[in-house]
């Protein structure tokens, strides 16, 4: 009863809003460019990115060996290292110079070097045996694979060697082990167990795809309206005296309807289809999607007022994707952002949306746990709703003035 009264009240004349809403839907579907951006890009990009980042983890990085010690110990080490999924020994070189050439030619991405006294140091126990590792820094994923796997093998080996030495000193095996492993440890990846690149990046990219396609689509629609010199196109129904409020609500409802369906497919289906992390409650994701989409829609509508023609928004804003990704603190830790950029990032819906989504989807948080992001999104949605109304109101005022004189 109250709702019906509100809907038909002076403020929210439901018929007028409905008219704006259907008109906007018609505009979207009659513009092939917008249809491509809204539907094709939104659905194709997640799949493309999954194909690109196919293997999740970097595996079998080719490495070379320079073994000057020619010992049983070094061979045992290499054997274990080669057995890790991270690296594959592809070359055995007789000198560093030879291995260096291979590395410079990018045939391999790491070199391990055993000095000639390696076995001697281990067996006499008078000096620390040194292994030198040379990592290709052209991609940090190579370095991570080579360095971490080698380190892990070294730690395992070290435990064995230590026990051997204590036994040689006359301690019994049990005691030696208690000494070496005085405080053993376990390591657990609490979320995203694979630790892979795809399972970290793609969930964040999914939110970015929703953001950017919506952003470009709305800028395109706004630009087209401006271009056709029909500012009223941005303000449909204004001639008939519809208020800015009803126009804003009607238009955004059209975008929201389309994107809520698309967003649900992208955020819920893609992680399950490609076996990315998806431990979150789908209902919580759907709830988070509401303020996220509203904030993005009103953010885009506020910006779209400035795009003077259809294509210019795309030309200028194309690099924004990378900036959004980095300023949000996903690809680069939020703590490392200079304050000015961090405060700026709070104004972007993507910053809150992506963290909220990662918390729920990848880390299994509840909506209560990620309340900070959820509330921030509602605040942004409200704020950008007001700026949209303001922008459109000013535009209408200018238009009326022009028409007046």
């Amino acid at each position: 009863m109250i709702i019906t009264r509100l809907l038909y009240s002076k403020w929210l004349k439901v018929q007028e809003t409905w008219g704006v809403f259907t008109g906007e839907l018609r505009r979207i579907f009659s513009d092939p460019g917008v249809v491509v951006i809204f539907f094709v890009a939104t659905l194709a990009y997640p799949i493309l990115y999954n194909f690109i980042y196919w293997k999740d983890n970097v595996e079998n990085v080719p490495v070379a060996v320079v073994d000057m010690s020619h010992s049983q110990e070094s061979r045992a080490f290499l054997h274990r290292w080669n057995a890790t999924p991270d690296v594959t020994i592809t070359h055995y070189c007789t000198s560093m110079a030879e291995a260096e050439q291979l590395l410079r030619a990018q045939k391999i991405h790491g070199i391990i070097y055993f000095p000639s006294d390696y076995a001697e140091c281990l067996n006499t126990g008078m000096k620390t045996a040194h292994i030198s590792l040379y990592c290709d820094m052209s991609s940090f994923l190579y370095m991570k694979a080579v360095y971490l796997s080698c380190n892990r093998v070294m730690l395992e080996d070290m435990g064995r060697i230590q026990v051997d030495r204590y036994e040689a000193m006359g301690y019994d095996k049990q005691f030696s082990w208690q000494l070496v492993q005085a405080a053993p440890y376990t390591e657990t990846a609490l979320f995203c167990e694979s630790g892979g690149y795809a399972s970290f990046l793609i969930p964040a990219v999914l939110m970015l795809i929703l953001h950017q396609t919506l952003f470009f689509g709305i800028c395109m629609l706004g630009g087209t309206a401006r271009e056709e010199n029909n500012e009223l196109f941005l303000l449909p129904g204004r001639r008939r005296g519809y208020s800015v409020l009803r126009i804003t609500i009607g238009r955004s409802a059209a975008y929201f309807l389309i994107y809520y369906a698309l967003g649900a497919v992208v955020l819920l289906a893609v992680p399950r289809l490609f076996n990315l992390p998806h431990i979150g409650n789908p209902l919580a994701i759907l709830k988070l999607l509401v303020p996220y989409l509203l904030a993005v829609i009103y953010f885009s509508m506020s910006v779209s007022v400035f795009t003077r023609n259809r294509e210019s928004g795309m030309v200028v804003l194309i690099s924004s994707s990378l900036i959004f990704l980095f300023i949000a603190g996903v690809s680069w830790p939020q703590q490392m952002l200079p304050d000015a950029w961090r405060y700026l990032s709070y104004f972007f819906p993507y910053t809150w949306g992506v963290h909220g989504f990662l918390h729920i989807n990848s880390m299994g948080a509840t909506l209560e746990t990620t309340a900070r992001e959820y509330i921030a999104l509602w605040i942004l949605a409200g704020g950008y709703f007001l700026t949209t109304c303001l922008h459109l109101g000013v535009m209408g005022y200018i238009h009326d003035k022009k028409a007046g004189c």
Partner: protein
Amino acid sequence: MKQIFLNIWHVAQREAGRMFIRPLYIFASVGVMVLCTIFFLSIMKRGAPERMPVAVVDKDQSSISRRLCHETNATQSVEIVLISPNFADARLAMQRGEVYGILEIPEDFYADIVSFKQPTLHFYVNNAYTVGASTAYKQLLTMCNLTSGAFQREVLRKKGLPEYLIMERIQPVAISAHMIANPWSNYAIYLVSTIVPGILSLVVLMLTIFAIGFELKMQTSRQWLEIAGGNYTVAMIGKLLPYTILYIVLGIGCNVILFRFMHFPVMGSSWRLVLGILLLVFAMESMAIALIGALPTLRDAISIGALYGMLGFSLSGFTYPVMNMLPPFQALTWLIPLRHYYKIYVNEALMAGPVMNTVIPMLCLTAFFVLALIVSPRLHNALQYNNYPLK
């Protein structure tokens, strides 16, 4: 011959006028490049992540567990922001994104360790944020290993072993890692030196499509051809000349900033690196001509250009190696100029490898010119007759 140069000059003059009359061109090129360079250099000015927040679940609350906390906190890469006796609190903090790692010290840790009962430390990292997590992981792993080491040292000292022998017992093997050309594991060197040229290539692609497509859209292309004396090649060279000068200045400018002012390493030849960025600009212009020639409608070409351009960053393989992509996509990377530039960059800046490894990607970049040639008849036609839909 003289007429041809004169025509090129006239077209270029006309274009320069168009370039400055709309703020878009300067803003989308100079503005975007300056903004992005400042942005990426400023967010990574520290190089490697430092003081990543971690939590400690101290169930023991003894002097040893406190000492472990102090020592963890004293390292450069992590900072303890939460000490709680309760794992649930720490896990919640992690789910809120407040910490990247958790170190759990079990109950009776002190009592157990001194009585050789081997209490187990646990540490957890959150791989949903990979950079923070791997920083925390490395540090927590080191701390856990040092704990056993410190205990061994104490026991061996009490047994009366000389100090030099103790070190041998604790650390019989050591790895000395050499990070080639980037010994600090500096993320700026790794990321910015490809992101900035990548953004330049994106700018070149979008603006070139826009500059040509806008003529089609506004139906001014015939006038443009007339000034060029009806010669398509002259028209193209004249039109792209002012932009190309601008892009070259931007390209060299960003190289100077990165490799001269920021002192990013250049092991090989910086001249070949500069040549690489020039070829990247030309290849991207050719790609833009190919796109607008294949789809002589501005709005289609811009949309497809944007979709293609964004894939360039992923397909260039500078973060995620190409060898791990799905095979058809490995093939697709050949169509990405940024991929070839990245190869030149790796070879010249990081590896100082054989010159052939620079020359081959350079030839590949040059080959993009063929794409522009293929579409030329079609684009010429479109410019002359304006026979494609305007929108």
